[in-house]
């Protein structure tokens, strides 16, 4: 039987983070933001998302009618601004509910994970 090579740890971590990117991006799009300002705003809160991931994501969310966008020419170059559409806000509400539920469940699981190491429910 061929040995199973585990994927590198960073890949698994990336996968874990990828699952919350949409929620993180929507959380900052109640008002108008353009790609770069959104990335900066997320990074300032500790959520670093690669530009190559975030910018195409905005377009895809817009194509799914979860965001609305418009070009604006203020100071500097023309920029495309995005914010949540009504459908995006509805999805955002559902994602928050799901997220809260998941946090509770996973925190409960890792608090008593069978390794004999008792962890606090906040994950530390």
């Amino acid at each position, binding site marked *: 039987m061929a040995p199973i090579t585990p994927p590198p740890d960073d890949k698994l971590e990336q996968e874990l983070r990828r699952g919350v990117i949409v929620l993180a991006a929507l959380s900052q799009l109640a008002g108008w933001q*353009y*790609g*770069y300002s959104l990335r*900066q705003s997320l990074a300032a809160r500790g959520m670093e998302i*690669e*530009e*190559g*991931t975030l*910018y*195409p*994501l905005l*377009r*895809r969310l817009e*194509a799914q009618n979860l965001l609305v966008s418009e070009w604006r020419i203020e100071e500097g*170059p*023309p*920029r*495309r601004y995005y914010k949540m559409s009504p459908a995006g806000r509805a999805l955002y509400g559902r994602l928050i509910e799901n997220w809260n539920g998941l946090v509770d469940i996973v925190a409960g699981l890792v608090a008593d994970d069978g390794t004999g190491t008792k962890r606090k429910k906040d994950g530390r």
Partner: protein
Amino acid sequence: MMTPDAVVEAYVSDVARRLPRAKRNDVALELQALLREELQGKADESGRATDEAMALELVRAFGSPEDVAERYRPAEFVIVPTTRSRKFAAIALGGVGLQWLITLPAALLKEPGREAVALGGWWLTHGMGALWWPGFMVTAAIVAGWARHRWPPAQSTTWRPRGQDNDRINRTLWAIGGVAAALGVAAVTGAQWAFEQFLPPQVGEAFAFDPDFLLLGGAVVVAMWSFTALSCAIVFFEGRWRPLTRNVDLALSTMWFVALTWLVVGPRIYLSPVTDEGAKGWISLVALFVLIDLCVKIYRRVQRPRTAAALAAIAKT
């Protein structure tokens, strides 16, 4: 030496040409503005002016133009789902291999002593011709993939377990198959007569059987048809397979494959060389399908007891 702006511009145009025309300019304009801002942000952070190396580092980290364009494109339909790609490749290549296996020996036997010429002739006809099969499969997969994308199948909530009674047959489908087979037999045997009745005599002559073939080959084919019809009739009236009828079916399939291969490589069937060659081509195709069907039957037969044995072993532990 390029300016940082020229690097960004070249990168963006490389991404843009891979995007759908409708959104190409819009995405390019936005991406260019964002990358310039990212570049300026990097320069401010490092406390030095932007340069070519910094711009290259930025766009390389952003991703290859192919990857980035893919991220911007809406999800498109999948031609072969990953779970089926191995099987797809095996059937596509296996089909070509089988056709070669049937046609190559026939071509070499046709011209003994002139193998190189025969090989060349074979490659230009049946050799390359066999590639129709993967082409056909890809075309069918494209149509199926597009249909799945256009009309997505029902979600797993509608899934129903398959009937466990694998031995039961669908009588309606069998009846349709039986009628089709009878019509096929009538068409092959009655072609000459029908053409002579309704078309100019030359057409009828083109479908005249070789009398030598009728003596042996005709007898073999008629015997095979009779056995197959009898076996199918028994299964049809019983409404289900039994171990005996399954064994007979497997034996008949094997005999059909041998008989059809013999027809391809063996004696002349029709007097007209053109008709004969055409008929042998079609028979090769039928032989290929018979062989595939045979392989599937054997695979299922080998597979079923193995699953049962594994389950029994687990139950014991």
